[in-house]
């Protein structure tokens, strides 16, 4: 198993470290559970899992001011939503299309949002959240709120025209936004090397005269967190946007209907050796930041919470037919 190479962080409380560990577990347990429910036919439609990308998500979100800063998300947004602390019951209910879901059953996995908590929503269009992110950042700048926006997207979105346009506009208007590309090295089936002519996308920051940051090991929670602490401060101080890229891997297919013929089993297994969750557990134990008992308690709490969410969702009502005609326009 790969070791983390971060130095011991002394400024994070043990409580927060365990919260971060819990968030990663919640993502893993939740998505594993949803995957099984899809296979059983209980969950319809498309879901995209964050399994394997937990550190890349949690490390970033942990560096933000929870409930204050804003994020936009993409179709692979479970990791971001859960890291931000979304209600798991409502999220599971949403994925099952129930009336008690985060979006009353009308959005589904790809459109989970929590506006009150600063989550401006997952998005079913690749790059669809990028314009929204710079607009939200514009509001914070005009109103001088001091809040920043983190725009989550993958390696594929970097090739959409909106990447170019939004980075350019954000750089010209010096907007408080972190453009964060979670590079899991595949679109659906195309490896990144076949769709870009450079090695890594963070280098594109140079085209916009903004800093480009690189997190080579996106499965190292502390490395992701440390980097984000640095850039969050930079952006909050009004220096304009940054582009940051982390390298990670998704253990499952693009979505539930992906047999994964474009990757070798060897490659997947190599990446499983770098699993962010056991690595962080080891980090906590090695540095005596948590005891075995505390870790096991967090693991159990996470499993229980996910089980609870399934019970809640299964026993929740379906939305009414009338509800299909509601919520189109604001009054």
């Amino acid at each position, binding site marked *: 198993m790969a070791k983390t190479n971060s130095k011991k962080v002394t400024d994070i409380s043990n409580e927060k470290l365990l919260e971060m560990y819990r968030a990663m577990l919640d993502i893993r347990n939740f998505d594993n559970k949803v995957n099984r429910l899809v296979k059983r036919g209980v969950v319809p439609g498309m879901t995209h899992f964050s399994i394997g990308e937990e550190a890349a998500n949690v490390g970033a979100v942990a560096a933000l001011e929870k409930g204050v800063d*804003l994020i*936009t998300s993409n179709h692979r947004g479970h990791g971001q939503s859960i890291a931000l602390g979304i209600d798991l019951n409502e999220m599971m209910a949403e994925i099952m299309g129930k009336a008690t*879901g*985060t*979006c*009353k*059953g*009308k*959005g589904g996995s790809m*459109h989970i*949002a929590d*506006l009150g908590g600063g989550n*401006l*929503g997952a*998005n*079913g*269009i690749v790059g*669809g959240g*990028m*314009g*929204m*992110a*710079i*607009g*939200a*950042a*514009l*509001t*914070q700048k*005009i*109103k001088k709120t001091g809040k920043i926006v983190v725009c989550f997207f993958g390696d594929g979105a970097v090739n959409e*025209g*909106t990447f170019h*346009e*939004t980075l*350019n*506009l954000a750089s*010209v208007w010096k907007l408080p936004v972190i453009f964060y590309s979670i590079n899991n090295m595949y679109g659906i089936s195309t490896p990144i090397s076949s769709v870009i002519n450079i090695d890594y996308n963070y280098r594109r920051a140079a085209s916009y005269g903004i800093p480009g940051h690189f997190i080579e090991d996106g499965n190292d929670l502390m490395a992701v967190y440390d980097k984000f602490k640095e850039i969050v401060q930079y952006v909050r101080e009004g220096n304009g946007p940054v582009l940051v890229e982390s390298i990670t891997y998704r253990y499952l297919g693009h979505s539930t209907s992906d047999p994964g013929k474009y990757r070798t089993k060897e490659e997947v297994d190599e990446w499983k050796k770098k699993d962010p969750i056991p690595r962080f557990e080891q980090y906590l134990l090695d540095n005596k930041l948590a005891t075995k008992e505390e870790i096991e308690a967090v693991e159990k709490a996470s499993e229980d919470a996910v089980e609870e969410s399934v019970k809640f969702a299964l026993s929740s009502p379906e939305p009414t037919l009338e509800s299909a005609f*509601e*919520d*189109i*326009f*604001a*009054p």
Partner: protein
Amino acid sequence: MEKETKLISVRDAIIMAMSEEMRRDENVFLMGEDVGIFGGDFGTSVGMLEEFGKERVRDTPISENAISGAAIGAAMTGLRPIVDVTFMDFIVYMMDNIVNQAAKTRYMFGGKGQIPVVFRAAAGGGVGSAAQHSQSLEAWFTHIPGLKVIAPGTPADVKGLLKAAIRDNNPVIFLEYKAQYNMKGEVPLDPDFVLPIGKADIKREGKDVTVVTYGRMLERVMKAAEEVHEAEGVEVEVVDLRTLAPLDKDTVIQSVKKTGKVLLVNDAHKTSGFIGEVAAVIAESEAFDYLDGRILRLAGEDVPIPYNQTLETAMIPSVERIRKYILRLVNNR
């Protein structure tokens, strides 16, 4: 409410509407290409940079995707942007943000959030700018649940409806017509003069035949109605839709029941143009039983707009052709 009015152009009505709303609500701001020092591609924001400053009258790069996306993100988080699309043809670059994001976000989020944004677009031809700068694309947007679409045809309606659009908490596509920015009309000066979205207006009452229209063609329909009244004593009832989505079906249906004959006119292409929707609404309504003749449509030809001015003019309904179609209906031909 003040009753005072002034004879001003569509252009000035637009500046007046936006300025009044920006004075009233500090969250309203204007963004787009050349809206600042240049005063807008069609002069529709002249003087506004001087009054409101560059934070609220924002020039942008040529980045329709980023412009529309930023407007939507700003609207979601408490601001109220007006986007100057300039030529409506460029709205095609904004389609994902308008159709997939703005129109659907509140619904997909189960009723949470709102997106108060107005996209102002200069539609139609008649200024010699050829195929890529002369389109009226309103029909596309009326097809998308979650968008409101407004196409006024007089300076007063432009002012009242633009103010309403800015105050509305939803995404609105607001059509202006390039060929009519100079058109003058009496416009109320009351800063609280706001017209209701979703209400058509009977611009002329009559008992012999209904003509339903909107936008640029209203002026021509009114002229044709006056001419057939003078020449043949035919009384035309002109229904100005003003708002296309949501459509005021009731006013249309009541008028057709009254006259029994209906002609639909728009400048956009005939095939799948918005008046096709109006024809279907009439045909499936109780007005069908009152019809004394076919539902007729007169629209732009199904061709890209040609550059040559004689050709271009011939591709859009003229006053003369509107008159001919009215008389066809009246004489049951």
